[in-house]
């Protein structure tokens, strides 16, 4: 079965860096940023291109800052 490819866009300015998405991600795609946002949080970001669009990160995100994308079916490799 072809691997599903996905990506997430994180509203890093509104992320509070709780890390729940990082913990929930089954492919270790997410990690804490080195830099901080204006509120002083090390936000969450994609550190690997391993996203499988499972939405786990978005489901546990308490601040609803994650948007999840998935490769269209006809474009899947």
């Amino acid at each position, binding site marked *: 079965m072809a691997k599903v490819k*996905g*990506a997430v*866009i994180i509203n890093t300015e*509104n992320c*509070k*860096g*709780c*890390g*729940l998405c990082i*913990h*929930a991600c089954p492919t270790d795609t997410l*990690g804490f*940023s*080195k*830099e901080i946002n204006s509120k002083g*949080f090390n936000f969450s*970001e*994609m*550190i*690997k*291109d391993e*996203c499988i*669009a*499972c*939405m*786990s990160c*978005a*489901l*546990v*995100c*308490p*601040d*609803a*800052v*994650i*948007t*999840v*994308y*998935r*490769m*269209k079916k006809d*474009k899947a490799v």
Partner: protein
Amino acid sequence: MGITVSLENMEKIYERPKTLKDKVMHYCPGCGHGVTHRLVMELVEELGIQHNTVGVAPVGCSVFAYYYMDIDMQEAAHGRACAVATGIKRMMPDHYVFTYQGDGDLAAIGTNETIHACNRGENITIVFVNNAIYGMTGGQMAPTTLLGQPATTCPLGREQAANGYPIRMSELVAQLPGTIYVERVAVNTPARVRKAKKALIKAFKSQELKKGTSFVEIVSNCPSNWKMTPVESNKWLDENMLPYYPLGLYKDEISGE
């Protein structure tokens, strides 16, 4: 810097519900209230009921729920959410009316209103967030604080002899003939979040039947007052909260059997 990925040929499969206002919630990092707010607003968006839903906010951490939920709402006095919701629902029986309450609000100061609303079978949905602590006032003992669990008003841990037992509300209201649907869920893992949302949808939709109260207890965390990281708090929830507050369906009379 994280990596940059192209969104070419990609479709959006999940985004923040439009019924959640474009504001940063005041909750501490990792707090389950944020997830629960989002779930309730997702279902309001998905069911298309923004125009005929009225929510009631409690006193507690979620006192400002109306700043985030883009629906008409009322802020109730501490513990009185179920009475306020009763007043709203009785006047507008075809609206979806829900309360959003924490453990102190619902199970201590407001127990009377909770029990009587459930016993009358008010056609409202009660969303009960149980995180075993008073969050807003800074970590005092809640009616649901576990035996042995420290809080600022029981610094050595809750003791039965002094403070009695943590109250199990789902079990209690499920005994009342007025409730039609009672389920206890959690929001500390992706799978549980999905399940919690299903329960909330079921609870809201049950209002259409006008057959009784729906009650969804959400076992949640409080990293700040439990003095843990968010990830640790979710693990602590699994190990300590769930054995005393077992997840599951306590009552389902929706189908009418």
